[in-house]
C-alpha cells in the first residue's frame, strides 16, 4: 500500500497535465462541431474533394462526419494518440526510473519482493489512467451536450470514449516490457514518442488500404469507429489481440524483472 501511494503521488503532476491536454483537444475540436453541422453540405463537399486515402488517414467517414458521433470518432483518434503517449511513457519510466535515478538501492533492499514492487506500480498507473479517462469522459460529455445539434446515443459515446482506455492499456503494457529489457536508456520520451507516433502513422496508412490483417500492426486500428457506431460493439479479434498483448507483456515484465540484476552506479 505504501508503495502504491508513493507511486500515485509521483504520477500526480503528469496525470493532471495529460488529462488537461486531452480535454483541451476535445474542447477545441468539438467546439467546431456546430459550425460544421450548420454548413454540413459544404463540409462534406470539401472532404469529398480529398482523395479517399487522405480521408482514411484523417479518420474521416464521409457519410457520418456531420453527426456528432461521427465527428467525435475522428477526435477520439487524436485523444487516443495523446493517451497512448501518456501510457507508454508511464509504462517505460515506472520501473526503469528506479535504476536510472538510482533509487533501486533504496526500494529493492526493502523487505518486499520484486513482484510486489511491480504490482504496486502497475496498480498505481492503472488508477491514474482510470482517473484520466473518467475526468476526460466527464469533460467530453459536458462539451458534447453543449455542442450537440440533435440527440445522440450516450452508450455509443461511451463505447467510443472507452477505446481511449484500451489504447492506454496496450501502450502501457508495451512500455513496461520494453523498459525491463532496456533499462539503461538515458531518456524514455524519445522511445515512447517514437513508438506511439510510429504506430499512429502506420495505423493511419494501413487504414487507407483497409487490410484486415494489417490492422493488427497498429493498436490504433484495433477500433474501427464506424464499425462501433453501426454495430454497437467492438471487433472481437482485435479486442482479443489487444488483451493478449497486454497479458503477455505484463507477464513477461513480472518474470523478467524478478530475475533481473540491478546494477550498481557506474
Amino acid at each position, binding site marked *: 500500500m505504501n508503495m502504491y501511494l508513493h507511486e500515485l503521488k509521483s504520477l500526480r503532476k503528469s496525470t493532471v497535465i495529460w488529462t488537461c491536454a486531452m480535454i483541451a483537444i476535445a474542447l477545441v475540436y468539438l467546439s467546431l462541431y456546430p459550425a460544421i453541422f450548420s454548413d454540413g453540405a459544404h463540409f462534406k463537399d470539401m472532404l469529398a474533394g480529398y482523395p479517399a486515402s487522405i480521408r482514411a488517414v484523417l479518420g474521416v467517414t464521409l457519410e457520418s462526419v456531420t453527426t456528432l458521433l461521427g465527428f467525435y470518432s475522428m477526435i477520439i483518434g487524436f485523444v487516443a494518440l495523446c493517451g497512448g503517449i501518456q501510457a507508454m511513457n508511464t509504462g517505460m519510466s515506472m520501473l526503469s526510473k528506479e535504476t536510472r535515478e538510482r*533509487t533501486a*538501492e533504496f526500494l529493492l*533492499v*526493502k523487505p518486499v519482493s520484486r513482484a510486489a514492487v511491480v504490482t504496486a506500480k502497475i496498480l498505481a498507473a492503472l488508477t491514474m489512467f482510470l482517473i484520466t479517462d473518467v475526468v476526460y469522459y466527464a469533460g467530453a460529455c459536458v462539451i458534447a451536450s453543449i455542442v450537440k445539434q440533435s440527440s445522440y446515443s450516450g452508450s455509443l459515446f461511451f463505447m467510443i470514449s472507452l477505446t481511449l482506455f484500451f489504447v492506454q492499456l496496450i501502450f502501457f503494457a508495451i512500455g513496461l516490457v520494453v523498459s525491463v529489457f532496456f533499462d539503461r536508456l538515458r531518456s524514455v520520451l524519445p522511445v515512447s514518442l517514437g513508438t506511439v507516433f510510429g504506430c499512429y502513422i502506420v495505423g493511419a496508412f494501413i487504414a487507407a488500404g483497409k487490410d484486415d490483417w494489417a490492422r493488427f500492426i497498429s493498436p490504433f486500428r484495433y477500433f474501427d469507429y464506424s464499425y462501433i457506431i453501426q454495430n454497437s460493439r467492438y471487433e472481437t479479434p482485435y479486442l482479443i489481440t489487444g488483451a493478449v498483448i497486454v497479458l503477455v507483456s505484463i507477464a513477461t515484465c513480472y518474470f523478467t524483472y524478478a530475475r533481473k*540484476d540491478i546494477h550498481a552506479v557506474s
Partner: protein
Amino acid sequence: MNVIEIKNLTKNYGKARGVIDVNLEVEQGEIFGFVGPNGAGKSTTIRTLLGLIHPTSGSAEIFGKSCTTNPEVRKEVGYLPSEVFYYDGMRVIDLLRYSASFYKKDCTKRINELAEIMDLDLKKRIDDLSFGNKKKVGIVQGLIHEPKLIILDEPTSGLDPLMQQRFFDLIASENKKGATVFLSSHILREVQKMCERVALIKEGRIIKFEKMSTLQENNFKRIKVEGPSDLDKTIFDMPGVSKVENGGKTATFLFRGDINRVIRKLAQTDVSNLSIDEPDLEEIFMHYYSKDG
C-alpha cells in the same frame, strides 16, 4: 549462528569478472571488515547478498535465507550504499517516513533521535542537500528500523571527520545493542578501528581472512635501521623481508617471521639507530597485494 553465509559465490557480468568463489561467514554480534581496492568485488558481494543481483553460482544468505527467495529477511537489514540517491522532490522526513513504512514499526522517535545525532535537517528537500548531507540521510534511513544486520558500503565517503566519528560511535552503540555489522571499505583506518575480523578481497577473490588482532600481530614488524655509513644492501636478502626501502644510511622494511633472525643479522652490522614498530593495516594489506596476487 552465522548472520551472513556466503558459499562459493561466483558472479560474472557477461565476460567481465565480478567475484570468484567467495566464501565468507559473519557471526552474530561481530563487526566484520571487508577490505579491498576499488573494483575488487566488494559491492558485487554486498549486492548479491541483498538480492539486488543474482549469483552466477553459489549462494549468499542472510539469517540462513536468500534475499531473492525470501525478501522479508531484509526486514532485519539496514543498508547504506556507497552512493545515495533518493526520489526528487521529497523532503528528508517524507523519505524517512516512506522508508519506515516498509518495516511496520513506529519509527518517529528513532528518526528524531538519529537526525539529532547526525545533525540532519529533516525539513529540507533532498535535492537541495549536499553529498555529505545525503549520506547522512542514507545513514539515518539505514538505521531507523533498528536492524539486526547493518551493511555498510564505503560509509564515510563525503562525511567530515567529526561526522565520521559520530557515525562510528553510532555504529559501535548499535553493535553493543546486538547488531551485527558488515563494513566494506577501502579505507583501512576505519576497518582497523572498528572490526574484529576482516576479509581482504582482491580481483574478485578473497585472499586473506583473519582476526584483526592476528592480522596485526602475525609477526609483522616495521623495522627501521640507521647506520653510521651507507648500509650494506645484501643484509636484507633474507626470507621474511619485504618492502625494503633503502636510502643509503637508513633502510625500512617489513619483516614477518622469527624476529631473532633479524636481530642476529643486525647484530653483525654497525647500527646507529633502530626502531621496531607495529605496522598499520595498510602496510600489511599492501603486502598481500604485492605478494599473494
